[in-house]
């Protein structure tokens, strides 16, 4: 069976727009959530978000890319540049026909779609909008596949390229997709990850009526409170992460730094509700067990769980139940954390950002904390690594995700057995 090694990591996230700044942020316990500055949030139920202070030019994009790309595409290109460099890949030298791109996004080019809509409709006044006012790259915003085609173009990747859009599990699924391409021999190198920039009026407005987002507007810093008793919804974020996946033996042969490998990836649906979750977590547990079984991983082997931990009442309860169901008593012994407490929930992007956190946790032997955890919730009674990072050897990390549509995904990254003795 062909295996996927993770050989490069690139991140664009709030509170730190590259890999190292991201790692510093999520191990600091300090939050990057704030009152929205991208637009005037007056009149919205939730007025807070984790915004990234991102400069595309500084991140390596050229003027044409900056001009034509929606923010979420810019994020992904920036993360991909960092990941490719980190992997030490010379894209001129690799077989680019065997290089694939698999990226997730839940809402795609909404920012440009909304920006141009306001213009062509003259502020929502005309159903029959005036096409003459549309910008020349508006089509690229309409089709979310632009995320993959632009990254493929940037690196000349002529293998399969695809955007995976499974709501908030898109990030895990984007990487899982790439892993399957390597397993099946469809590609040897995959630029895999996800990107999302949903801090725009329409995306914020989506979540207001269903009360999914936090309305702790006067205390933005402490608004994202996964697993805390007083949590009141998620805080919108934005972000992107790219992992370079390589066929394991090829990565070893070229002497690449191998962060970890994909030990298992699985997804299931709950077939229950587009936004609701049954409290028992049965389907997420099933995805976790599938992922574990692929890699021969036992509950005792898991050193860290990176939770979806969105901070909604139902999610955190659901996820806690899923861990107990899948891992039994061991669920109480494994440190768990939600980095959404610090960098918000970037919808389809966050799953990839969380996989990047897992890869770094394995690489550096640190478990990031859950910030803002103050008051225990009797329904969430596991070890959520409150507020302070923990030094710990991490040989295997599990990450889970849950998305609108009823999607449940799980991925396990692990230090390859061959490399375990020389671990930290």
């Amino acid at each position, binding site marked *: 069976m062909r295996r996927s090694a993770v050989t490069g990591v690139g991140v664009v996230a709030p509170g730190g727009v590259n890999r190292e700044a991201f790692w510093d942020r999520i191990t600091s316990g300090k939050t990057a959530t704030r009152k929205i500055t991208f637009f005037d949030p007056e009149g919205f139920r939730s007025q807070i978000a984790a915004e990234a202070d991102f400069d595309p030019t500084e991140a390596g994009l050229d003027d044409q890319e900056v001009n034509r790309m929606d923010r979420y595409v810019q994020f992904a290109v920036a993360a991909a540049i960092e990941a490719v460099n980190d992997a030490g890949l010379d894209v001129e030298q690799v077989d680019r026909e065997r290089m694939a791109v698999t990226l997730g996004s839940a809402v795609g080019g909404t920012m440009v779609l909304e920006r141009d809509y306001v213009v062509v409709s003259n502020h929502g006044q005309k*159903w029959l909008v005036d096409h003459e006012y549309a910008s*020349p790259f508006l089509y690229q915003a309409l089709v979310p596949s632009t995320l*993959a085609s632009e990254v493929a173009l940037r690196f000349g990747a002529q293998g399969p390229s695809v955007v995976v859009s499974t709501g908030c599990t898109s990030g895990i699924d984007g990487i899982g997709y790439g892993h399957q391409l390597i397993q099946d021999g469809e590609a040897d190198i995959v630029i895999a990850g996800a990107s999302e920039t949903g801090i725009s009026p329409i995306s914020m407005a989506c979540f207001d009526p269903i009360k999914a987002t936090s309305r702790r507007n006067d205390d933005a810093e402490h608004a994202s409170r996964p697993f805390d008793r007083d949590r009141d919804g998620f805080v919108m974020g934005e972000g992107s992460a790219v992992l370079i996946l390589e066929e394991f033996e090829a990565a070893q042969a070229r002497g690449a730094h191998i962060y970890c490998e994909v030990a298992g990836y699985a997804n299931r649906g709950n077939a229950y509700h587009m936004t609701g979750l049954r409290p028992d977590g049965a389907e997420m547990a099933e995805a976790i067990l599938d992922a574990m079984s692929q890699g021969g991983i036992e509950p005792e082997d898991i050193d860290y769980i990176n939770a979806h931990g969105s901070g909604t009442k139902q999610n955190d309860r659901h996820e806690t139940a899923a861990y107990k169901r899948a891992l039994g008593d061991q669920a109480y012994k494994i440190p768990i954390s939600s980095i959404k407490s610090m960098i918000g929930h970037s919808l389809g992007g966050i799953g990839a950002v969380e996989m990047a956190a897992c890869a770094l946790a394995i690489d550096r032997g640190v478990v990031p904390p859950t910030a803002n955890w103050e008051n225990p919730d009797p329904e969430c009674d596991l070890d959520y690594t409150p507020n302070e990072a923990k030094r710990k050897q991490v040989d295997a990390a599990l990450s889970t995700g849950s998305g609108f549509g009823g999607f449940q995904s799980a991925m396990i990254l692990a230090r390859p057995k061959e490399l375990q003795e020389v671990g930290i």
Partner: protein
Amino acid sequence: MALKPESFTSLPDADRRAVITGIGVVAPGGIGNDAWWKAAKAGKNAIRRITRFDPSQYPAQLAGEVDGFDAADYIDQRMIVQTDHWTHMALAATQLALDDAKFDPEGKDPYSMSVITASGSGGNEFGQKEIENLWGKGPLFVGAYQSIAWFYAATTGQIAIKYGMKGPCGVVCQEGAGGLEALWHSRRNIIRNVDFVISGGTEAPIGPYALTCQLTNGRLSLENEPEAAYRPFDERANGYVMGEGGAIVIVEEAGHAKKRKAPQVYAEILGYGATNDAFHAKRVSDDGSQLERAMKMALERAGVGADDVDAVFADAAGVPEADRAEADAIKKVFGRPVPVTAPKTATGRLYGGGAPLDVAAAVFAMRDGVLPPTINVDKPAEGCDLAFVTKATEAEVGTVLVNARGFGGFNSSLVLRKP
């Protein structure tokens, strides 16, 4: 003792094969397999002036629309208000496909069934309405269903919930190529122990704002005569016409289909190849080498020689450079006048729904031994002198290659074989 999932472990098993056992068409020309196939064989042009809104002010005024579609015939009112027209058509096509496959998900193991669809652009009409509410009236006027109706995963999610399917689900986006990717991704899941997948896709791109977006891609035909607007490979090719609808395709594990005595096995999904031109963010490439590579890869994976292919269902972009690229690729792969057809000339390009509809046409062609025609192509452009099927033609159709491409350099090719 190792813990195991109660359902299965998603590791590939090379012995499992993916077959197509059901089709549900909701497309320009007809609702239901028989009605649509009859229109396709007759070469009846379903492209006409847009009726979903008044297109007078736009330079492109044509589309392939689905006539007589009433969502209430297939889904309840509660679901209708929660979803976009795109999802309505997919839910209708799903029921038609399940009926065709004579499969009732009720009472089956929920984990053994998956939903994997393609989406080109999501819930356009629903999205435009809600964004109009937001900007015209304010945030309090955005409805509760915007969050679940507009995004690309809406169709897959709603189908999975409606039919109680808990297997691995997916949504793939590759503009016009996504439909083939969805079918092959279904096969990836079949070999990973899923038994039954609802796949394919639909699209609903006919709305004022969606059209405005499409006008910026530079590839829409601005010709407003239905017979003259979409003529791929013709010397008068001047772009394409969009269309709505598509097809839902049931992909099933071969042994599962056999065991449950499925009424038909239309075809096996044998091979697939996907590439990207990685050429330009907007410009159309006239270089067919990456499409050629996708076709060769599909044949190689299928273990099928180019000589064994009985017909090619072309992507037929309708943009001269892209037509030349495809014609060139077909010539290089086959080196002989393999019959080529593009029934989409009568429906327009349906984006995420387009390739599944071509797959539907391909399997009906196998079943009935008749190739559907390409219409409005009577003067092939220089270099595009392929063996076009221009009227319904009886033929032994055992192996077919279907091409699909998408804006952004996506090329894909799928090989199907009649059992």
